[in-house]
């Protein structure tokens, strides 16, 4: 027991040099630990997500970056045998408090997944899905939302003439932008993106990156990516994770050019991972 405690305490402390936004943090994570059954997947994660900035989570496969992202809107609730210790706050409100309304919480965070997952409905119905589940039926509000969200996701010009066609007829890149439109239709505060470009070709990837650039400032974006260049291009802050630990969390430019830890340097220059 003592040995384990020693090992944990002997784990290197996280290097912090993240850029601070003008409006302070929107999410605070404190000493967050997570176990899948007996296996610990996250170790003592402590970090803040700055409002209006783009934060990239990088690290080799299995390092826990997706797990961390999915903890933020409690998508991990679907997994059996999950144990959690620590705190996660969204604007000071405890995400894992028993009194927290999970549905309301998820409405404050849009999520975009690895593979585009439009519903088998029309483009229009897809975009307004978050409003539909709220029971909004006012045609004017719905129409406005569709235009705003599709413009926001840079899909309006391509989709405005085929709103009532099936979303499954769109190309992969268009489908992913539709999913982004769906994620921002409910006007969330935070946008969670779980490797949004990993299933897309380079041109579609470029469009999504441009879109992230456009959306930053308007939304707080957290993006998980395997693509180092992508992280470098789109994010303000970058968190490097390894084996369930947060190794270095800092300003993107510094993380990629002059990281403070050797391990980060090895990873971002492609020497391991």
């Amino acid at each position: 027991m003592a040995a384990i405690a020693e090992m944990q305490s002997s784990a290197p402390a996280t290097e912090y040099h993240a850029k601070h936004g003008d409006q302070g943090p929107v999410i605070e994570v404190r000493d967050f630990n997570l176990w899948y059954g007996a296996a610990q997947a996250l170790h003592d994660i402590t970090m803040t997500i700055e409002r209006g900035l783009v934060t990239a989570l990088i690290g080799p496969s299995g390092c826990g970056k997706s797990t961390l992202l999915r903890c933020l809107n409690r998508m991990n609730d679907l997994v059996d045998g999950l144990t959690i210790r620590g705190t996660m706050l969204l604007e000071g409100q405890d995400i894992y408090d028993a009194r927290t309304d999970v549905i309301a919480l998820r409405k404050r965070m849009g999520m975009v997944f690895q593979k585009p997952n439009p519903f088998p409905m029309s483009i229009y119905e897809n975009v307004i899905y978050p409003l539909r589940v709220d029971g909004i039926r006012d045609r004017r509000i719905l129409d406005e939302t569709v235009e705003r969200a599709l413009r926001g996701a840079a899909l309006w010009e391509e989709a405005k003439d085929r709103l009532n066609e099936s979303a499954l007829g769109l190309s992969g890149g268009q489908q992913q932008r539709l999913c982004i439109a769906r994620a921002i239709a409910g006007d969330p505060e935070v946008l969670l993106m779980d490797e949004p470009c990993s299933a897309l070709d380079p041109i579609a990837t470029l469009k999504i990156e441009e879109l992230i650039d456009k959306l930053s400032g308007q939304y707080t974006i957290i993006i998980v990516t395997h693509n180092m260049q992508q992280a470098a291009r789109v994010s303000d802050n970058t968190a490097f994770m390894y084996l369930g630990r947060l190794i270095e969390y800092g300003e993107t430019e510094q993380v990629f050019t002059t990281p403070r830890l050797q391990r980060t340097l090895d990873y971002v220059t492609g020497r391991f991972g």
Partner: protein
Amino acid sequence: MNYVERDATRSLAEALPHSRGRVTDIAARGEPYTWALGGALALGIVMIVGFLALVLYNGATTFIPKPITVVTLADGAVVAGEPFRSESYRPGPAVLEKLAPEVRARIAANDGYAGRTLYRIGNYDIYNEDFRWVSDFEVARMGHPTDLIYAERLEWGPFIGRLKSVHVGGAVREAASMPETELARLHGEARARWQRLRGIERSEIGAVNHQIERERLAVRKAEIAHGAGSAEARQRAAEAAIRIAELQREYDRLAAEARRLREQDRAVRVTLAAIGGEEKELALSALVRFYPANAISLTGKAGIYLSRWWEFLSDEPREANTEGGVMPAIFGTFAMTLLLVIAVTPFGVITALYLREYARQGRLVSVIRISVNNLAGVPSIVYGVFGLGFFAYVLGGSIDQLFYPERLPNPTFGTGGLLWASLTLALLTVPVVIVATEEALAAVPRSMREGSLACGASKWQTIRNIVLPRAMPGIMTGIILAMARGAGEVAPLMLVGVVKLAPELPVDGFFPFVHLERSFMHLGFHIFDVGFQSRNSEAGKPMVFVTTVLLVGLIFLMNISAIAIRNRLKRKFAGSQF
């Protein structure tokens, strides 16, 4: 360099024949398995196609009018009938003894076998049998006289013989001197009159009786509610007496009308003569149809064929179900299957939804799942017993006590009926729907559910908007399987509401129009009844085939429509990448 290459080539060439010549293990080669699988499939297809072809051929040819053969036997007797089937048999020693020596020698030369033919001779009321075997060695002469008619009668089965005379009013006219068109006109009029008579007796007098019964029940209800002899009951009885008197007058009027029609009907009669000279006089309207079997044209045959099909599809059975139509059975089968689907779908889908989406997957759920699968293996007759005991006696008995006390001791819901039969079959087929729905739910990709939940949808909203529509084609497959199983089931139905003859359909013009408590007819039971329970199973055999064709066709039709709906749903999701 050159040398080395040549060497290498040679060693390869040496190695090759060796490896080619080696016998590889039969399990390692695919072809035998392909042949075995293909052979098994071919065998299955041959059996199914053969069965369907047999049923279709026999079903389709049953209604074709056949010629009548008149056979004069060696002993001078005359037999007239439709040749039904032929076979060879071994005559017994007692029969052989009486035969002429040359006939005996001929049979002996044929290893003791002789041929014989089964004739449908009809005239059951005269001969006391419908069929007669005629051995080939008995036959002296055969002929096909054109003046023989085949007449289908309302009672006693077909009559084969000659139309002798027609009586209209008091006048008697020889049939031979009568133009065919006039006879046809008289027959048409007589049949129309008979239909009208039946309409009065069945529908109109039936309606009056129904209303009288309702008045009587109202009085009984008042007596139960307020006590016999109370003021309310007496008042209700007085009101009922006035109404019943009115209804009685209406009844008398209808009965008089019916009497008048029946007298008219009796005035138009025909005399038929069998081939042996026996005469039979009956009302012209008692002949459903008649035709000169050996002189009928091809178009005439086609007309008879179609009119028999029409009668079969649209009329009620007669003659212990071996003749007439099966309309009540078609209706009963269809209504029962429809109710079965309506009952089984929500029940099965909700159960599967809970098991797959809400219940915590563990030992208990596994046990439940295995139990559900085992339910599919319980003999169907056990379901019948359960349906009778639980649905009819317990549930139905309670309903009767609560809502229909005035009709007791006659049961209303407390006996087998359409509703209980459908629910019993729903219970029988619910495992199929549960299993299919669970599979369909499990096949909905996780990404869809996550996408919906991430949009802030609740679990139920996700299931309703995303999961259920996606799983619908799979659920439909389960319903189709359940429907096919339920529509063809007979054994449990015999206990919970199917009867040999149900004069009243479960749907009629009296409030509340749909009577789910009524017993009904079913094509599957009809097949059993006609084939194995009638007085002459030989006569019923053609009907068994026709009814089977109809049942298979009905199930086929219902399946095709369900599959069409499923394919429409599937197309909605076509192009999905998941």
